[in-house]
């Protein structure tokens, strides 16, 4: 990685609580003005990583560098970093204006400058005219925007955001995602964003860091991660996927679901067991007789933009998830076609890894259904 404009570096950062490893020798570089998202199921260590950078958690091992300077022993209030907390953490005894002014007063900025900055910031988050409101009179979305304004008004070099949109409804969440991205580009501040929502990560980030069990699984642009997931965990976590057992017959030829199909992957060796990942939206639907695969539509669920079909051929084990904008009635027979670049080959996970994946995803779907919780 190009080191000239790196803002934050973590080197071999390890965090242990009572013998439980929360972060395992983490190396991470974040460039200046970058929007980086830490993505993973709950308990993967993403919030802990954020707290390490904010200064609220001390690493058991390893170093944290800010602008090339080691800041392990710098207390949070001396770091040029501000945080938007998951549950907002607004001061109940102060009104909206005073909450946003809080950090500026500490740095003893002159009153004129304070007023100017707060006015700008309120306009930016769309809360002009709310200055004198008490914070407990605001809706969740408004409180969230006050929390963002309170952090950003200090013009930190780095803004940490800990699942800041978790408590908002879907519509507001989408609006805020676009809003945050706009603010980030307008102010040129580095954002480090934590979420377990893959869509949020894909929408906003310049770069996504996927974490599991205190380790980084993959780093890359949203497109890279979506199109070239490094393993089945990443593939399944980012978007929905069909993941099936397969055998790499030779380079560029894979067998799965009883067919041999050409693919673009090589270098696995001959007759090696692999995981085959197919995105549900990559299937092309055709007449049954023309398909590489054919099957009966077992179920069809309307998802808004597309239909989600479950397709299975009689007598075959595999059930394929297919996304299509055209509905096919339950019971009808369809054909399915894949082009070589739709087939993603991954190294096989060990059974333990597979069990972990299942439990992590289950935990996460529970989390998405119910209330969010803290990681520690």
């Amino acid at each position, binding site marked *: 990685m190009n080191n000239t404009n790196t803002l934050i570096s973590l080197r071999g950062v390890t965090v242990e609580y009572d013998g439980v490893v929360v972060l395992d020798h983490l190396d991470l570089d974040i460039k200046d003005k970058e929007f980086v998202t830490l993505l993973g199921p709950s308990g993967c260590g993403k919030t802990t990583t954020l707290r390490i950078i904010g200064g609220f958690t001390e690493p058991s091992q390893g170093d944290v560098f800010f602008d090339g300077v080691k800041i392990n022993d710098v207390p949070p*209030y001396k770091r040029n970093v501000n945080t938007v*907390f998951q549950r907002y*953490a607004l*001061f109940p005894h102060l009104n909206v204006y005073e909450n946003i002014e*809080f950090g500026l007063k*500490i*740095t003893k900025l002159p009153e004129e400058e304070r007023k100017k900055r707060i006015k700008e910031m309120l306009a930016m988050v769309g809360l002009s005219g709310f200055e004198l409101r*008490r914070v407990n009179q605001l809706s969740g979305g408004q409180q969230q925007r006050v929390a963002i304004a309170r952090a950003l008004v200090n013009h930190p070099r780095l803004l940490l955001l800990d699942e800041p949109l978790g408590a908002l409804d879907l519509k507001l969440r989408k609006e805020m995602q676009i809003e945050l991205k706009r603010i980030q580009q307008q102010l040129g501040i580095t954002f480090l964003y934590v979420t377990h929502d893959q869509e949020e990560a894909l929408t906003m980030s310049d770069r996504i860091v996927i974490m599991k069990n205190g380790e980084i699984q993959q780093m890359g642009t949203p497109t890279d991660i979506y199109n070239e997931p490094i393993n089945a965990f990443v593939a399944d976590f980012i978007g929905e996927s069909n993941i099936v057992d397969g055998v790499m017959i030779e380079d560029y030829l894979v067998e799965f679901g009883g067919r041999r199909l050409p693919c673009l992957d090589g270098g696995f060796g001959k007759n090696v067991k692999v995981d085959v990942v197919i995105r549900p939206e990559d299937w092309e639907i055709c007449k049954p007789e023309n398909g590489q695969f054919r099957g009966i539509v077992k179920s069809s669920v309307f998802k808004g933009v597309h239909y989600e079909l479950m397709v299975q051929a009689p007598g075959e084990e595999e059930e394929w998830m297919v996304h299509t904008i055209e509905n096919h009635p339950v019971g009808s027979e369809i054909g399915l076609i894949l082009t070589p670049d739709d087939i993603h080959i991954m190294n096989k996970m060990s059974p333990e890894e597979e069990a972990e994946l299942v439990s992590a995803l289950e935990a996460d779907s529970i989390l998405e259904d119910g209330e969010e919780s803290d990681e520690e």
Partner: protein
Amino acid sequence: MKARIAAAPYLLWAALFIIIPMGLVGWYAITDMDGNLTLDNFSASMRFAPVIGSSVWLAIIATGICLVIAYPLAYMISRKSGIGQRTLILLVMLPMWMNFLLRTYAWMTLLENNGVINRLLGMIGLGPYEMINTPGAVVLGMVYNYLPFMILPLYSVMTKIEPLLIEAATDLGCSPWETMKRVILPLSLPGIATGITMVFVPSVSTFVISVMLGGGSFMLIGDLIEMQFLGNAYNPHLGAALSLVLMAILLLCMVITDMFSNPEEKEGLLL
């Protein structure tokens, strides 16, 4: 309507034992021995202004000391884990399980001229110091007896301050000292107001502590009132008037402390 019926036992109680006696106190205060209406009792009360003044002064000192001791302690307790908090609060309340008179007696034997403390000091060649029968001993008695009443309301308000708010303040650049000043102190004001009231009120009206530890060498308003009813200065009319003066002082004190607490955060006042 039903709620009113449910409140009936208490209303009856309040009428019999609060409203009527208060009326009697008021009646006594404005009459003389022969039953004629008069304001002499109040003008007579004014002759005891120095006594009232020293009562208020000692109570203020005791309340101030309680606040200074209790505030950091309550904060420390409120930041402990659940079990730690319960254990420490239990320890704070423990002395209150013992009889008030007994506790004050214990201080007498400690502070006496040939009491435990002076004898210990004597062993290393110091003293004896005159400790009992001084205003200091009275203040000590007040602080010792009423300290839990300061700690508990402070603790109950502070324990509701989320750790996240403290992190947020730190994140925005507050040193620990500034966090205390800008976040914890303002959020604990209701507890401070309640604590001050709960220590000041019994301190200013106490008579047992001043009799036992002050030795009767100087008088507090509580002693003065007691003398009017039980002592040889028997004059319930003057006693009633003095009681009303005391009530006025307490009311004033509560109004003042109330002004300092945030009008939106009154929970602490209810404890």
